[in-house]
């Protein structure tokens, strides 16, 4: 990672903004077409970030934290907050401060620092006071496995073996719970030694949290209710809950393995032509209730392994009748989905509960049909959970991803808990909201914008789960009061401060403070500065996230038109052209890639949803919303690398013309990686040349894309699907679908030999550009 860091456009701060220089007025900002937004990788690791073992200083009025952009009077021992201009005295322990002796957080290059608080002084003590001090220092991660049993034996075996492996990988102090479900929910009491013991909840009835507690025998002791995640475990819960249902992995590994051995698929009879009764919704409620009772406020994950759609009780997405198909995008459009809204509402409620408890829902769905990811998305996303969608529990997409969750070391996901994000910003700036895996904490303040995008109405957000790749998009607006009248009195810089507190995988609490500053662009005249500050990649991702959100939130929203209109407006504003002369159109290099991103976005699974199920769409969007800019950009516009004898591997145009008989192509579209052998290569390979010593070069050529694919796969979660295919093979569609159809059956005659055509009526990039130019220059 470290060598990459140098070339990392995100730098130490992990902040990338659509515009790096902002116009001063709301009006001007709206003319910029692409919204003002910042993408922040909350806890990306970076070797240069200092870790400060003491508590930060806060401004006494706005609570922002002391940072290098503050102004200081070392003599008076005073610092002036850059956000509110409040003068704050340094406390006594800063008395030694001087120009030559400043604490870490004031070094100019340390715009991002991490305060690591000693646990003992941590106000959010997560430890269980009933445990011995050693354990208290080291809060245990909690995992509740939620296993669907309505599946065929074969799948059951796959998932069991994955579970066994996972259990083996758990740290010894991790607390583990186990719930299985089918027609009913079975909560396994792992701490009961006499025999296997399970609590059974019916699947057809919604169960309130209090009921769950009461029925698990955890109620009655005045346990604190939802919303108490902050105060955590102060009251001290009876050990019964923890010791009965959640056991240290070291204590229950044997029990769990035994239990998995005995676990059968759901035994309730399934009438012919019916789906099995599966009560995913109730199972999730019960799991949430269990965690809420046992470990409120402590980092805990519900790991749901789901093998089919919920058909029973709340959260159902489809009827049990097999002749009744699972909803499609078409049904959603026509509002012909009797279950959808109710289910979403249910999962929203669940999300609320989980968030209030500080717990995460991870969803591992493996089925050929949909399982309801679209409905459950809200619960996963708001809690910052992981999601993996695969076709089978035996598929590597599931197996390897699942394993990754529990692995230590380089490839580990760095799963953190209980994150909160606070944003401080200069007072001209308003926050509209965040698109990404988090929940608004509804903390109102002067910086809250009137309009809301995503999780808004707040300056603080909760992320029950977050990991090193989590990247949120913050949408900004400017104060509508027009201050440009007296620019002289105003600071030419504006500031943003992101405060992320979280509990690390080791239980350590940390507060990361990132303070960034950017320039105001005082007048439209100064548009060069504006243009230079445009980040095309970030803009593309923000547009993708924004348009996805709008597609979900707004009925009858025409995404393609919306994108086109924005693109045209952008080109009109920033392009260089003579009116009504398309041929005169040129774009500044700062914008030159943007239209292609938009072209690919228009064609992507995010906008062209009809080729996918609502589950897949939801899945892709969740990935889009949580990944960093470069990964997200790959989702929008896959990368293509070409391998051949005559040259080093080189990026190739994402165009059908890149296909050649003697090349190997490696396509990375994030969720899948395609190794595509040209015809000749495939023939050679089939003839076994790579096995002949004299053709080692060929063997190396074959191997190179594989190695590169493995490098990509290694760092990615969920693990992408690896497709190895040959030109004209059926699997080649995974590549062709992503390529620009510059060659179709209509112009096949123009193509060079060995190349390929795509059978489509979609417009090609060239056509798209022609139209764009024409429209952009229209007066």
């Amino acid at each position, binding site marked *: 990672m470290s060598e990459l860091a140098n070339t990392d456009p995100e730098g130490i701060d992990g902040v990338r903004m659509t515009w790096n220089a902002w116009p001063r007025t709301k009006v001007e900002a709206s003319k910029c077409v692409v919204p003002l937004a910042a993408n922040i990788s909350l806890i990306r690791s970076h070797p240069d970030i200092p870790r400060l073992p003491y508590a930060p200083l806060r401004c006494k009025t706005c609570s922002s934290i002391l940072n290098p952009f503050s102004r200081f009077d070392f003599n008076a021992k005073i610092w002036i907050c850059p956000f509110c201009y409040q003068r704050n005295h340094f406390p006594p322990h800063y008395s030694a401060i001087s120009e030559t002796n400043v604490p870490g957080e004031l070094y100019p290059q340390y715009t991002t620092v991490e305060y690591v608080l000693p646990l003992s002084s941590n106000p959010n003590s997560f430890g269980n006071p009933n445990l011995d001090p050693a354990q208290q220092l080291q809060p245990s991660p909690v995992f509740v496995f939620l296993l669907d049993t309505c599946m065929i034996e074969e799948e059951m075996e796959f998932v069991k073996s994955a579970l066994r492996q996972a259990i083996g990988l758990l740290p010894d102090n991790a607390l583990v719970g186990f719930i299985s479900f089918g*027609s*009913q929910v*079975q909560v396994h*009491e792992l701490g*009961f030694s*006499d*025999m*296997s*013991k*399970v*609590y*059974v*909840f*019916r699947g057809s*009835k919604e*169960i309130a949290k209090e*009921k769950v507690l*009461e*029925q*698990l*025998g955890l109620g009655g002791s005045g346990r604190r209710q939802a919303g108490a995640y902050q105060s955590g475990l102060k009251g001290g819960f009876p050990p019964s809950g923890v010791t009965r249902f959640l056991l240290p992995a070291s204590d229950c590994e044997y029990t769990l393995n*035994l239990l998995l*051995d*005995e676990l059968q698929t759901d*035994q*309730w*009879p399934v009438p012919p032509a019916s789906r099995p009764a599966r009560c995913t919704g109730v199972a999730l409620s019960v799991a949430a209730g269990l965690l809420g009772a046992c470990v409120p406020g402590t980092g805990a994950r519900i790991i749901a392994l789901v093998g089919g759609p919920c058909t029973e009780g709340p959260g159902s997405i489809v009827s049990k009748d097999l002749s009744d198909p699972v909803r499609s995008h078409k049904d959603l459009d026509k509002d012909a989905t009797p279950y959808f809204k109710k289910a979403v509402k249910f999962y929203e409620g669940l999300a609320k509960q989980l968030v209030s408890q500080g717990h995460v829902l991870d969803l591992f769905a493996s089925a050929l049909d949909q399982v309801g990811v679209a409905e459950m998305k809200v619960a996963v996303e708001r809690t910052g959970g992981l999601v993996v969608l695969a076709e089978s529990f035996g598929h590597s997409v599931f197996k390897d991803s699942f394993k990754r969750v529990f692995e230590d070391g380089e490839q580990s996901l760095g799963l953190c808990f209980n994150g909160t994000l606070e944003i401080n910003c200069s007072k001209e700036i308003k926050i509209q909201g965040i698109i990404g895996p988090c929940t608004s904490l509804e903390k109102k303040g002067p910086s809250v914008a009137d309009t809301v995008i995503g999780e808004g109405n707040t300056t603080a957000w909760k992320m029950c789960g977050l990991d090193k790749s989590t990247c949120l998009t913050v949408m900004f607006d400017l104060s509508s009061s027009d201050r440009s009248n007296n620019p002289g009195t105003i600071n030419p810089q504006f500031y943003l401060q992101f405060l992320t507190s979280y509990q690390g995988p080791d239980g350590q609490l940390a507060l990361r403070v990132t303070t960034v500053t950017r320039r105001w662009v005082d007048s439209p005249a100064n548009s060069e500065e504006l243009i230079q500050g445009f980040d095309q990649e970030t803009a593309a991702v923000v547009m993708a996230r924004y348009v996805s959100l709008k597609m979900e939130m707004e009925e009858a929203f025409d995404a393609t038109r919306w994108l086109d209109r924005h693109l045209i407006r952008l080109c009109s504003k920033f392009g260089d052209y003579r009116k009504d002369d398309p041929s005169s159109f040129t774009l500044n290099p700062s914008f030159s890639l943007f239209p292609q991103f938009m072209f690919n976005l228009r064609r992507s699974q995010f906008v062209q949803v009809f080729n996918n199920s609502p589950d897949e769409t939801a899945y892709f969007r969740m990935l889009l919303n949580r990944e960093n800019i470069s990964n997200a950009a790959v989702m929008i516009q896959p990368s293509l690398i070409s391998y051949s004898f005559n040259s080093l591997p080189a990026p190739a145009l994402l165009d059908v013309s890149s296909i050649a008989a003697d090349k190997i192509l490696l396509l990375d579209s994030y969720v899948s990686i395609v190794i595509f052998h040209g015809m000749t290569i495939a023939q050679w390979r089939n003839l076994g040349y790579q096995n002949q010593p004299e053709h080692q070069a060929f063997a190396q050529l074959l191997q190179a894309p594989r190695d590169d694919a493995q490098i990509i796969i290694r760092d990615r979660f969920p693990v992408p699907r690896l497709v190895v295919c040959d030109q004209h093979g059926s699997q080649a569609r995974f590549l062709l679908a992503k390529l620009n159809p510059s060659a179709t059956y209509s112009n096949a005659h123009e193509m060079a030999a060995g190349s390929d055509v795509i059978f489509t009526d979609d417009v090609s990039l060239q056509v798209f550009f022609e139209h764009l130019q024409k429209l952009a220059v229209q007066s």
Partner: protein
Amino acid sequence: MAAPVPPGASRPGDNTSPPAPNYNPNFRGFPDSLADNMQNLNLNRPPMTSNLAARPPPFGQSPAFPSSSPSPGIPGPSPPFSRPGPPPVAQLRPSVPGYGPPSSTLPLNFVPGRPTGPPTSQPMFLGSRPRPSTLLSSTGSPAAPTSGGPYPGSSLPTHPIGPPLLTPGAHPNTLTSTPLSAPQVMPPSGSSGNVMSNGPPVFSSGALSARPQFPPINSASQPPVGPNVVRTPPGPALQSQLPSSGAPQGTMPPLGSPFGVPSWRMQPQQVAPPPVPGPTQTSQMFGMPPPLPNQSMTTTISPAVGQTGAPMAGPSKIDPNQIPRPTPSSSVILHETRQGNQATIPPPATSDYIVRDTGNCSPRYMRCTINQIPFSADLLVTSGMQLALLVQPLALPHPSEEPIQVVDFGESGPVRCSRCKAYINPFMKFVDQGRRFICNFCGFTDETPRDYHCNLGPDGRRRDADERPELCRGTVEFVATKEFMVREPMPAAYFFLIDVSMNAVQTGATAAACSAISQVITDLPEGPRTMVGVATFDSTIHFYNLKRALQQPLMLIVPDVQDVYTPLETDVIVPLAECRQHLELLLESIPSMFHNNMTSESAFGAAIEAAFLAMKGSGGKLLVFQSVLPSLGIGALSAREAEGRTNTSAGEKEAHKLLQPADKAFKEMAIEFAEYQVCVDVFLTTQTYVDIASISVIPRTTGGQVYYYYPFSALSDTAKLYNDLRWNITRPQGFEAVMRVRCSQGIQVQEYYGNFCKRIPTDVDLAGIDCDKTFMVTLKHDDKLQDGSECAFQCALLYTTLFGQRRIRVITLSLPVTSMLSNLFRAADLDTQFCCFLKQAASEIPSKPLLQVREQVTNLCINALFSYRKFCATVSSSGQLILPEALKLLPLYTLALSKSIGLRNEGRIDERSFWINYVSSLSTPLAIPLVYPRMVAIHDLDSKEDHNSVIPSFLPLSSEHISNEGIYLLENGHDCSIYIGDSVSSDILQRLFGVATVDEIPTPFVLQQFDNPLSKKLNEVVNEIRQQRCSYLRLKLCKKGDPSGMSFFSYMVEDKSTGGFSYVEFLIHVHRQIQHKMTA
């Protein structure tokens, strides 16, 4: 199923006993005599007084009787006391009262006197009875003759005399004599003469009906004995009989009627034959000398009083030793249900009898309160008696009885009347060369199915009638065809539901239940059709997956007790063969698993609902072990007993409300259970109030029953729990049953009483039915019947056997119709009538103030006696209390009933609820002892001669008979109390209890056997009783001067108590009421 022999119950095998008839004679004699005595006493005879005194003597004299009998009365005077001793004999109480039989016979003999007889002459009766014997031959002859054989006369005849009083002493004989006092008048005293013939005569009478089973021997022995040892003598007789009966019982109590009252039989039979004579016979009266008792003073009865009074003067009271008491008979009676194409009068329900089904069903299965049917509603009303059937369709037969025959009609199913659907039976009349038959219920003429056709013989009967059970037997079983099934016959599924709440675990109830179940599993039928499941519950419900594939049982908890469900569709109830090991392991570990359970709540209602859901598919038996008040979830109850107590003012008024279910929740559940054929039995092992009134709704509606162990003691109740459970599971039983009773035109069923669910007016649904369950079916006229015709009743029970066969048991009874009131009285069945009283009273307790119920009961008694007095005994003087022989014990039983647990003001609500519930399905043979328990002295068991009867003779339930030096055992078929006086010799204590003083006896009392004859004998006695009752009686130790001692005395129904009259006072009360009515 046809003749399932209860596991436990092996009857004596002595079928042979039949011959014995003689025995009884003695006893029966008593009854009569008693009655007579009574009469004498009061009434006319100044001598009466003397009589009183005399009576006792009679016994002693008894030996002499035979001849002396006449004198008896006189002699009597001397040995009044004999009582003490006599009681033993008395045990037989049963029906002792000797029915009409005597009378019947009497009539003939006495005719002269008799006719009028009823009136004063009663004494005559006495005398007469014996006569009867002789007569029998003559009169009774018809029927009797056959049986007559018995006479052999050997012995018993004496008894016939059966001076009621005497009963105590077995020597009825003497009594008879006594009674004679009256007799005096009558030459009849001669009756005593019978005595001589003693054996014979009596028997004869008895014989008629019952074959003298014990014939010679008894007679032989008895005569001598009787005389000598007043009581003892009887004993012998009894014993002899008992043995036979006892033997059978030994195996099992099946018979139920431990008291073999030989005497009865006699009567019954007699009755049958001589229906006509009725009037005369009937009259057995006591003369209650009003004057006697001081009280009389007050009464207006004066005239009579005067007379008797004078004599009585000395005593100034009715001699308690002379008043009617049950006289046990010990011999086995042989009973043919029909003779000479006439219905015979069955032996008393409490007697030991062997039935030969000659057309009418065995009285075990169905019996009527009156063995002749009044031709009109008016006549019935006039009689003051009830008309009802008591049906016990799966009653245990005597082992010596022929098994019920199973008839398979193949695919067409049993032949039935096409209009009323009555089943073919011996009383359907074939006409037109057998091509058609006339239904004896609706009168419709049906075509005979072609392949069932058979020509008629010269007698008008089908030629094949004797080969076809359905044409010659009152009880047959038909193989049910598909038409009778809505699904495959259900498997035998047993689901055990065990309370493991803190209280249950700590009192040992859970362990007791688990161990009982564990043992009982081995008694379950083998095979794939036997399914078993187990669940436990406290505030949640715990099911167990017992499937073999699993390495260990899996516990599945259903925590939602407001809205329950079953945690598995399969595997909660699995074939026994597949889970035996798991089950045993599980039952072993349950008590320890919940050892530290701190949950005190109990979700009883939810648990049974959940178990029901698990069983819904198949149906079956749900056996619930519950220890505390259901406090949680569905059907949660409040401790309303306590609430009632705190709010006494309202409580007093609404006291009976506590005996009603708290709400409808259980009722609704129960109806659903019944619909899905789930039969629930509840075992309450508790130490607190559990609201039986509410809980019992479920067992009652589903054909189950409640078992109540209060206060539960792991030490003493574990064995009982096991035995109850074992009997529950191993007794003959059926599932998914439907029962209907049909009656001939003119009579219809008014109402059914018992444990069942009723959805349509004509049928009762029984999720479970077993050999102990009895139903009362009240009848009403909807038209006049034809005098001289017969009226038939048919009970059809469709059920599935344990082995999955679908059967229809058809029980048919055809009785003569009469227009003569006297016939009704002669044919009255005391036990059955009283059982009706009991059940009706029990059913009314929850909805009426107690006082009202008690009054009602008393009025029922008075009305019947008044009717008899007014219409059948007109001749007697108004100063006499005259009781129909058949009903002479009615006042005693009525008094006992009004003092019984259910009708007492005091006592815990649960105890009364349980009593009410227990009574609702109680069989007649057990109903009598429940109200009038039998008491025996056990401190001197070893000193008594063993007369083949294990159980010594009974003592009257009067504290006079309890001495401080004695130890007594009292049992009512359900509980057993052992009372220890405060001056019992330590030697006896040492021998019986292994301790030197009363105080050292450990409080949860467990009967042990020590190595000495007395202790062995006691154990034998207790075991014998258990077998007779089919119940492992709950033993309770009562000590004088202790609250337990007080509770013992509450059984002394003949004593005056805060709750009511003494027996003597009650007779006077009844008498007064009757007189009052007469004059009104």
